[in-house]
């Protein structure tokens, strides 16, 4: 009988859902500009360094993405990473703990902080902005206390953590094997899905776009791997970070937990009435964020072979939030993906690395990062403002 017609909003939606293309465009522009100003910028050596710098920050960003997805914020990830760095340094160099125990203790300290946030937020209703601001100060104090009177500790250079984060690179065969596995895995998942959709008599995507996307993925993974291999290669910390992104991406898109995270961030009342345990969802997001922040702190401590009062300090807390938003995760909750972390952190890292190569101090770095963030938030806000106008 009456057929519901397509609303004019769907066109606008198409205009709004640009996916990752704006970030990739911005990245391309930044790379071209920096390369024009300093021919060393796109050298394999510099890109290897950029990747190594970005990896620990990226792990922090990944956690921030989760908290932003449930519509909350964590201002203290940098401080938590600093606390974790202090814990791992004290554990390994002063207490003589085995490395795995020190790392475990550091990540656990982060999880405890996150659980505290989750408890205070869900049971006491304290806004996450103030809550994590208070947490930032508390963890900062704890970090200073853990480090003790010297305020700075070195990790033994021969410890596996330092070797792994500083000097360990994937052997070429392993790097290419992983690339092949990722591409083959992507194709395999697509093929299985195609077959199941055909069996379920659902529309099946034509061959060409699938093949094109697989080819694009192959190129996007193979070319950087090859280019980095011409120098030192792909750092272990980079591989760890990308592995975490893949895992979080799978959790977010294909599990009930991930669905609950996006539902809570989109409309908490609806999620509650749909039967999701909203409190647990919030708490899990805070715990995951702080745990990832702690892990990032451990990775950073390994990379610098040291922890001090400045670890995870200065602008880290805010930079990772900027990176998550630049990467495409909405500040308003419900929209975003795990891939915002590598994309956003690549943009932030590019700005930092490019301006360092130009021998500029931190002033332009802050300003440029801030302007890019403002641009990203504006895109986010405009996209959000348009959405509810359609329909009713």
């Amino acid at each position, binding site marked *: *009988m*009456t*057929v*519901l*017609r*397509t*609303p004019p*909003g*769907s066109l*606008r*939606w198409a205009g709004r859902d640009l996916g990752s293309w704006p970030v990739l465009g911005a990245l391309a522009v930044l790379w071209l500009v920096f390369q024009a100003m300093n021919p060393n910028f796109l050298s394999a050596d510099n890109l290897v360094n950029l990747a190594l710098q970005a990896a620990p920050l990226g792990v922090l960003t990944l956690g921030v993405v989760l908290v932003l997805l449930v519509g909350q914020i964590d201002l203290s990830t940098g401080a938590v990473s600093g606390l974790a760095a202090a814990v791992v340094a004290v554990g390994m160099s002063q207490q003589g703990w085995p490395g795995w125990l020190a790392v475990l203790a550091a990540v656990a300290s982060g999880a405890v902080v996150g659980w505290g946030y989750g408890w205070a937020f869900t049971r006491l209703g304290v806004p996450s902005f103030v809550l994590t601001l208070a947490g930032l100060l508390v963890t900062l104090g704890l970090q200073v206390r853990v480090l003790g009177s010297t305020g700075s500790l070195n990790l033994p250079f021969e410890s596996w953590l330092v070797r792994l984060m500083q000097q360990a690179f994937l052997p070429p065969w392993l790097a290419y094997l992983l690339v092949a596995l990722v591409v083959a895995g992507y194709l395999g998942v697509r093929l299985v*899905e195609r077959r*199941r*959709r055909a069996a*379920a*008599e*659902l529309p099946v995507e034509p061959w060409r776009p699938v093949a094109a996307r697989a080819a694009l993925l192959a190129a996007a993974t193979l070319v950087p791997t090859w280019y980095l291999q011409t120098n030192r290669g792909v750092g272990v910390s980079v591989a760890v970070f990308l592995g975490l992104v893949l895992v979080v991406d799978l959790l977010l898109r*294909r*599990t*009930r937990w991930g*669905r609950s995270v*996006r*539902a809570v*961030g*989109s*409309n908490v*009342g*609806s*999620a509650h*009435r*749909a*039967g*999701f345990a909203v409190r647990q969802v919030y708490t899990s997001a805070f715990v995951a964020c702080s745990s990832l922040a702690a892990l990032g702190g451990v990775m950073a401590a390994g990379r610098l072979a040291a922890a001090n009062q400045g670890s995870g300090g200065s602008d880290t807390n805010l930079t990772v939030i900027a990176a998550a938003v630049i990467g495409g995760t909405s500040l308003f909750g*419900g*929209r975003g993906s795990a891939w915002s972390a590598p994309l956003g952190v690549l943009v932030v890292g590019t700005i930092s690395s490019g301006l360092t190569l130009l021998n500029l101090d931190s002033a332009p770095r802050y300003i440029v990062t801030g302007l890019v963030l403002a641009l990203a938030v504006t895109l986010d806000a405009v996209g959000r403002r348009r*959405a*509810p106008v*359609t*329909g*009713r």
Partner: protein
Amino acid sequence: MNGRAGNRRGPLEGEPAVLAEPPALALHGVTHSYGAVRALVDVDLDVRRHEVVAVVGENGAGKSTLVGVMSGVLVPDAGEVVVDGRETQLTSPGQARGLGIATVFQDLALCEDLDVVENLFLGQEIRFGPLLDEVAMEREAQRLLAQLAVRVPSVRAPVASLSGGQRQAVAIARALLGEPRVLVLDEPTAALGVTQTAEVLTLIERVRDAGFGVVLASHNLTDVQAVADRVVVLRRGRLNGEFDADVAGYEQIVAAITGVAIGPGEGR
């Protein structure tokens, strides 16, 4: 709204097979107060399969409270709830759902950033081991939407991109997913334009013809007269008349809603 006379299966005209079975949902003497305010006083209501019962009244007449009782959100102070001939208590929305009473609230309870399939299965996802079975959910969604003749641009489009009528249709389809017996709709057309209202009313008829009992809480008499089989009027928390929608006139119902005295009519 063609062919309505042929589809009519209201108990007043009678179709023995339907009359013989107990009402899918019956309320007897339901009373509820918010502090000193008596929102519902001694209200009776029967809903049978294959019929649309409209609950009308002024703002504050008790419509929403009645919807709350039927959906399990509110536990009434007094009164019986009988589901399929068995007395029971509705203590939570989940339990009411389990007993076959699905409610679409006025705000629809959708997640705007999630797509149509994700919203339809929100909180009751089909899983394949630890992972979500998107293919099965999408197939089921297509089947359900086709059955209700609901068109959306794409089942993978976020709900934020849909029109108000389409959102209402998605919310109704979601309520029907658990195979309920009674569908309770709270002001389904309040926020819609003319075309979208017509679409939703058509959908309500389709749901009725598929054998569900429908309760339609509304203050829009035009919509009610277009689609309802029976009209129940609430005034200040009390029943103030029950009408056969085909026979009762607009003025009669308005009189019952506003409390103006009427001549010998269909009032109880």
